């Protein structure tokens, strides 16, 4: 076991500096500020989680990093260059985004379209990554016939299939039941331990963030900004011991929850707005 924080070499893979993004500025409605003056740094080979309430701009961050969206102000750099969508970045979308009329294998194969691989190589990759997520038997099935957990694994296989240096994952396990979720978390830890991609991971779950990441970024909404960054500092690999039983886990959990509680109670647009902190009714 090695205690790591940050990454070997420590070079920066993803960097956002003073990034702002508003939506709807083209229409007549007043624009929604999704992100305001956001700074974020993800070191090479590290696992960073973004936690924050709904609508605080988590998905927007991932879309900016993938180059699917352009920032209004500030700078986004991926591997030292402006971001550009492509096979070097794997994106697991919130809500899977599988092609409903394509089979499971065709869905995974679709990620390979921009790589100049020959047919045999492509087929080999597809079957290798379907095996990785345990779905070889369902290669010919259509997404509509799969359970939520299986769809999730197809989406993961598709993101892994190009063997990307960077993985962007948007609440990938949110719709899974507790058991499947735990299995998938372990699976992801093992995959990451082997390959050490740079991972930017979005989740609503504080426990999941602590379990998986090197660093946790806590965000606040309206407009989206970073309010706290926490180094996890638990040794890897974490499937080899009971992370939840460590004092560090409890400490982090308490700290994150109190930060989130404060955030929600002080947010005037939240349903739970209550700055005095006294119980209402």
């Amino acid at each position, binding site marked *: 076991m090695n205690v790591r924080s940050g990454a070997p070499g420590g070079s920066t893979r993803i960097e956002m500096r003073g990034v702002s993004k508003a939506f709807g500025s083209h229409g007549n409605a007043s624009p929604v500020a999704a992100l305001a003056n956001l700074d974020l740094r993800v070191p090479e080979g590290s696992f960073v989680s973004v936690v924050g309430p709904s609508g605080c701009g988590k998905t927007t961050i991932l879309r900016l990093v993938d180059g699917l969206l352009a920032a209004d102000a500030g700078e986004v750099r991926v591997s030292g260059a402006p971001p550009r969508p*492509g096979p070097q970045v794997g994106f697991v979308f919130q809500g899977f*985004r599988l092609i409903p*009329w394509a089979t499971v294998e065709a869905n995974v194969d*679709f*990620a390979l*379209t*921009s790589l100049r691989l020959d047919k045999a190589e492509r087929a080999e990759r597809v079957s290798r990554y379907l095996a990785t997520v345990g779905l070889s038997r369902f290669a010919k099935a259509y997404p*509509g016939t799969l359970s939520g957990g299986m769809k999730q694994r197809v989406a993961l296989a598709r993101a892994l299939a190009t063997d990307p240096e960077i993985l962007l994952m948007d609440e990938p396990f949110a719709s899974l039941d507790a058991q499947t979720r735990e299995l998938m978390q372990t699976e992801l830890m093992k995959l990451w331990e082997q390959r050490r991609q740079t991972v930017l991971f979005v989740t609503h779950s504080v426990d999941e963030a602590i379990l998986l990441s090197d660093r946790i970024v806590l965000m606040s909404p309206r407009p989206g900004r970073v309010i706290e960054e926490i180094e996890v500092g638990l040794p890897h690999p974490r499937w080899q011991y009971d992370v939840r039983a460590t004092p560090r886990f409890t400490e982090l959990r308490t700290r994150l929850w109190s930060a989130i509680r404060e955030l929600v109670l002080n947010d005037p647009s939240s349903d739970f707005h209550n700055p005095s902190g006294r119980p209402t009714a």
Partner: protein
Amino acid sequence: MIAIYRTLFLFALIGLWWIVSLNVGANLIPTPVATLQAAGQLIADGRLAVALGDSLITFVGGYGLAALVAVPLGLVMGMFLPVGKTLEVYVYALAATPRVAFIPLIIVFLGLGFEAKIFIVFLGAVMPIIVNTYAGVLAVDQELIEMARSVRASQFQIFRRILLPGSVPFIIAGLRIGATIGLINTIVAELYTAVRGLGGLLAIYGNTFRMAEYFVIVIVLAIIGVIVSECLRQVEGRLARWKAID
């Protein structure tokens, strides 16, 4: 099971027809037996086959041409929004104009022959196919397109794998409406231009009160409608196999 119900309903309809024909009088509504005899006569002397052939050429020519023009045009309008936004006003305007209004003009330019007939069918069928194909492309899930951009799929790949299959249900719906209008316009064309085909027979028998023969033609038209619609259903079933969840 549905097939049995359908057959039973058909018998019920024929029964009703029979009762009505006996009460109204054979001059207005022929009995099923008289109609069957007339059908035998029309088939035996070959008049039905000739008329059916004429009408099918008009219909298939006009409708086929409409599909060939409308599907690509609708796709282009949906994929290149400046094109779509420019043309949609004209498409909607033309779709709302009764096409019968153009018939005198068409006769002036194209005469009374097959060209004019095919063009009348074309004009009727083309609009719903364009409108539906266009709507289909616009309705394709934007999140899927973003996913495709994320893996750096080419424009062609996005078209081939996402846009085209995504708009198939709309295209088929357009083709169905187009087929119905095309069939109606086939008959309209045969009534307004050189009187031929099934529409021609309809005019002749209608004007001379030969109701048994008239009914035969009406039934043949209904059968054509069913066949065309059933063919399109088959095509749709084939293209939408992924929807079949057993």
